[in-house]
């Protein structure tokens, strides 16, 4: 657990460092501090990734990985953008749909016993196809009232949702289910042997990931005001990157969704840092790639140093 705390704090450290770097390049470039517009737009553009990253981190904590988040976000974006303007009730349907997609993954992983990466690779294709079916052409819309409540471009309503997500995680962490998630990630066979109903827990974890994707989709449509069947694709790799930067161990069992949230925000800030530091945009992904590796290396080095200290 201390180990876990330390790894998480790496995610926070990385976030702190990127935030400072952002402030520095921003002010030196524009000669003033960022305004509320900047903070707000960072908040609103990051929210979808934040949600996907939370879902992804849950799955990774159990030692799995969810590539299908891309497809789930796409389907939910498609449904949101095509239906919600007719009735807000559809939001519930979208959340249920996301959860169902996730639960399908969970069923296959937990009861079909197919490796998560393979299951979700296949369902990614299925969900993406579904999204294209629902919404062959980009478009659709979302009612203004919904926007104002979710991602109001003038007031930080997004903070409320971010806060709720954090509280949701903290509560989850303090349930037996939360403890079981860590137990499964730590060693699934042992967890089962000591009485953790592993299959049921995993089913729920994947379903939760689907729910998170659905939430992300709703926020996505809310910030962009309409939908696109390919919207989810970029989230596959960025959610994995967020989880990684946030210090969640890929082997499972260590880390926290809050780290992943920090990672998601840090990744967004990196885009801004590159923008304001005037780096040739063509080289942008070079720096993003380096950022990823360095952030994780820092985590590894810190963990190693800690282990050394403990052994001495």
């Amino acid at each position, binding site marked *: 657990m201390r180990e876990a705390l330390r790894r998480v704090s790496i995610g926070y450290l990385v976030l702190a460092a990127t935030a400072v770097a952002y402030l520095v390049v921003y002010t030196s470039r524009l000669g003033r501090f960022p305004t509320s*517009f900047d903070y707000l*737009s*960072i908040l609103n553009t990051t929210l979808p990734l934040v949600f996907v990253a939370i879902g992804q981190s849950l799955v990774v904590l159990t030692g799995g990985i969810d590539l299908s988040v891309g497809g789930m976000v796409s389907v939910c974006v498609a449904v949101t953008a095509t239906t919600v303007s007719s009735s807000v009730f559809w939001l519930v349907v979208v959340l249920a749909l996301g959860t169902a997609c996730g639960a399908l993954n969970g069923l296959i992983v937990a009861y079909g016993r197919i490796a998560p990466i393979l299951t979700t690779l296949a369902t990614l294709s299925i969900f993406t196809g579904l999204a*294209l079916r629902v919404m062959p*052409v*980009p478009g*659709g819309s979302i009612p203004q009232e919904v926007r104002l409540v979710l991602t109001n471009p003038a007031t930080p309503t997004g903070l409320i949702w971010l806060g709720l997500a954090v509280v949701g995680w903290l509560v989850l962490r303090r349930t037996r289910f939360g403890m079981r998630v860590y137990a499964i990630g730590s060693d699934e066979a042992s967890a089962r042997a000591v009485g953790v109903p592993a299959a049921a827990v995993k089913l729920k974890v994947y379903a939760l990931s689907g729910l998170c994707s659905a939430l992300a989709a709703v926020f996505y449509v809310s910030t*962009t*005001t309409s939908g696109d069947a390919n919207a989810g694709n970029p989230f596959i790799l960025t959610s994995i990157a967020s989880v990684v930067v946030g210090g969640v161990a890929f082997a499972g069992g260590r880390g926290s969704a809050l780290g992943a949230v920090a990672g998601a925000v840090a990744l967004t800030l990196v885009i801004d840092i590159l923008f304001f530091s005037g780096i040739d*945009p063509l080289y942008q992904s070079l720096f993003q790639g380096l950022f990823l590796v360095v952030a994780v290396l820092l985590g590894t080095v810190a963990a190693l140093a800690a282990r050394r200290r403990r052994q001495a």
Partner: protein
Amino acid sequence: ATPAASGKKAGKIKIALSNSFIGNQWRVEMENVYKAACAMPPYVDQVECSVFNAGNDVSTQSRQISNLISQGVDAIVINAASTSGLNGVVQQACDRGIVVVSFDNIVDNKCGLTVNTDQIKFGQQLAQFIVDELNGQGNVIMVTGVAGTGADNDRNKGAKDVFAANPGIKVVSTYTGMWDSATAQRATSAQLPNLPEIHGVWVSGGTDGVIKAFVAAKRPMPVVGGEAENGFRKFMAGLLTPKVNGMSIGQPPFLSVISLELARAVVKGEHPKESITIPFPVATSDNMVPGETVFPDLPDSFFADFTDSGPNATVILCQEAATDGTPCPGKTLDVNLGTP
């Protein structure tokens, strides 16, 4: 290509180009001609240009546009990663009085202006050409673009309407070439053995790849309606064998320059806030002119319609502008937005 310094230089207006991905030669040319224009009068004296690429990631492009808003640019010229994904941030730019012009892959949000060719007509006209050449009888395949984008959809819609209206035409296969010659070639190669004789091919992008696949499979060359890839035009001109009977419609890369001009003119109050639809350049096998519509020394992937031509040309650009982004020698760039 670096963003402008913060201090506002007297008189100069700031116009940024936000492109999504330079995934093919078209995008590269589009940026090159933009850069070249910026280095030529009148832009070199009036405009402070910058260029950003976001990749196909909507949220990256959205962040970049937000940052451009913070920077206080006067106008933003956009080739969007998603027709819908940028609506929110574009609205914010509009709200702050920034002129937003999107082109090629345009943004839905109506507060911005658009510069484009008529994409539905694009699809229709190519399809009609094929129908006419085949006298309304024959097997046709459709090679589409990136699914889910606006341009792809409009072009397909235009084409399908035309084919459907001609009962003698049978669309025997439809698949995506991803607007990429290599992908189109691979997909076509894989398809051909399972297809009957093909009389007409309709291509949204990656045309030379499709033709090469027919050549490799030793199949009789059908009538081809496609984009403005130099390779396609080489076949049309007989510079490559077999000579292809075709029609080539270009989505002109200089849409970026027209957008630049529109943005400049609107900011300066010289032009009303109105979107522009320009005609697309059309070339057929019997009017190929080396050095003008086809370039024997340039690669196949090059888009040959980097400049407009003729007396009513919207803009005339030199080859270096398209290939290297260097200004055309000793010239003031004259962009004709048409009479509003």
